[in-house]
């Protein structure tokens, strides 16, 4: 176990710049991500939260014209996720991601969760069954769907879909989970369930979560990063950020939004 105040690093952005073609969307970001902690990213719309998050699993590689500069060090192996020698597919295999809008595949619930394993070449149905159950339990949705694993996933309610997407990400035992505003499309009850889940999950994995909702950030995260116009303005323990932000801009944003 870690001693509470000196957490180990799971990842670290070093001098990270990112360009959408000509547009510089991230500006010299330096930021640690601590192992088995929840780090929240907050900031006004368009400040680069999603862009930053999607740099970790090289999502930007899917589109032409995007360019990284700097490094994202990943531990314990201490390699740079952005290095050209690193295979983005291997990166994505070690990271999980949950999107703003639940995006289940139009397949059965079972196949949605098993997908990541199948992609890895796992076809043994015993193993798959086990892993699927485990992931669905981990995402706190097992009881709701255990009798209808062969139903189509898009027939689930929004909140269920989002938990299914989390299960899909969990099934492959990721080391770092990326959440991009996972609750913004959900109603308060579903939101509560997912916040609960994040709380559970951090016992096992490291989590990086983008949110617009200050309360949510305050409730679920251990660390908070405030971004503004592509820059990281402030990073620190959530309590400290919310109670006595160092930067005027952070303070304005937080207080302006708290209600």
């Amino acid at each position: 176990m870690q001693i509470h105040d000196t957490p180990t690093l799971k990842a670290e952005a070093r001098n990270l710049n990112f360009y959408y073609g000509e547009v510089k969307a991230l500006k010299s970001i330096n930021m640690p991500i601590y192992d088995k902690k929840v780090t929240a990213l907050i900031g006004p719309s368009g400040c680069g939260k999603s862009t930053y998050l999607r740099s970790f699993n090289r999502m930007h590689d899917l589109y032409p014209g995007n360019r990284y500069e700097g490094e994202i060090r990943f531990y314990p192996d201490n390699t740079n996720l952005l290095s050209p020698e690193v295979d983005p597919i291997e990166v994505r295999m070690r990271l999980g991601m949950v999107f703003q809008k639940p995006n289940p595949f139009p397949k059965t619930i079972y196949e949605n969760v098993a997908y990541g394993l199948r992609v890895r070449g796992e076809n043994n149905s015993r193993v798959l069954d086990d892993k699927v159950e485990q992931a669905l339990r981990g995402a706190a949705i097992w009881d709701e769907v255990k009798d209808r694993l062969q139903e189509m996933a898009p027939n689930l309610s929004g909140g269920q879909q989002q938990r299914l997407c989390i299960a899909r990400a969990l099934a492959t035992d990721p080391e770092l989970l990326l959440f991009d505003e996972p609750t913004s499309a959900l109603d308060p009850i579903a939101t509560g369930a997912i916040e609960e889940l994040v709380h559970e999950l951090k016992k096992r994995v490291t989590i990086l979560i983008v949110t617009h909702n200050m309360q949510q950030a305050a409730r679920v995260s251990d660390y908070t990063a405030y971004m503004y116009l592509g820059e990281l303005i402030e990073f620190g323990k959530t309590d400290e950020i919310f109670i006595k932000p160092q930067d005027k801009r952070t303070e304005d944003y937080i207080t302006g939004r708290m209600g």
Partner: protein
Amino acid sequence: MKPLTTEQIRAVIAKGKFRDNLFKAIGVFCLAFALLVIVALIADMLLKGAERFTLDFFLNFASRRATQAGILSAWVGSLLVMLVTALAAVPLGVAAGLYLEEYAKRNWITNIIEINVTNLAAVPSIVYGLLALGIFVYMFGFGQSILSAGLTLALLILPIIIVATREAIRAIPAMIREGSMAVGATRWQTCHYHIIPYAMPGILTGVIIGLARAIGETAPIITIGALTFIAFLPPVPFSEIDGGGSAGLFDWVMSPFTVMPIQIFNWTSRPDPAFEVNAAAAGFVLMVMVLSMNAVAIYLRYKMRKNIKW
């Protein structure tokens, strides 16, 4: 402007509704007119050709005597040519569409391919005939075979299938793709598990429009020189051949052939008016072939679509 009074509003609405109704009438008229033309054309062929609808008509070869002439070689030929066309055009078209939507990087090569595909969709079918005559018939030495015709029509409908595939793929939300890639799937795995299955209903529409066009196409097949009297069928794989030995699995693709629209064309240009009856009957059979192809596709599309939503 003062707020409108209720009367004024009602007057505006009445005017709008009148236009609605007028348009509705015009729309119904146009639709009915178009449908009427089809129904009339089909009914006309049915009535004119009615006396030929006997089993013999389907089982006889062409003949100089109208009453004995049948469409055996023509419908078999049409089916086989469509088989070759579909086998060539569908994989090629889907692969090309997949490449352009999922793989292609924006560079001059893809730009050329893109402009090309849209242009090809507009090339008149007869020009394909000229191409096929030079390339398939002579350069590749396929002669006037089922293979030549099938490939010609495949090229003809390839752009239609590519365009349909691309439109279908474009309709798949990016988040599905991202969802798949995010768990570590490769591009091909994403295509294989997601893109192709979800695009299938749309692809099918393209295939059907394409094949319906191909099955009725005359000009390019005439141009490759397939306006021919044929009173035999292509060899069935492994069947005995009169000269001894047995046919190979793919011998039929090199066989001479005729197809329905050619047979119809041939009959309409006969001196003896009795052949008009044959032409009408064959035209009706062709319609039924197109219709059943459509029906199969619409059913498949419906079944697939039911399971796909996001």
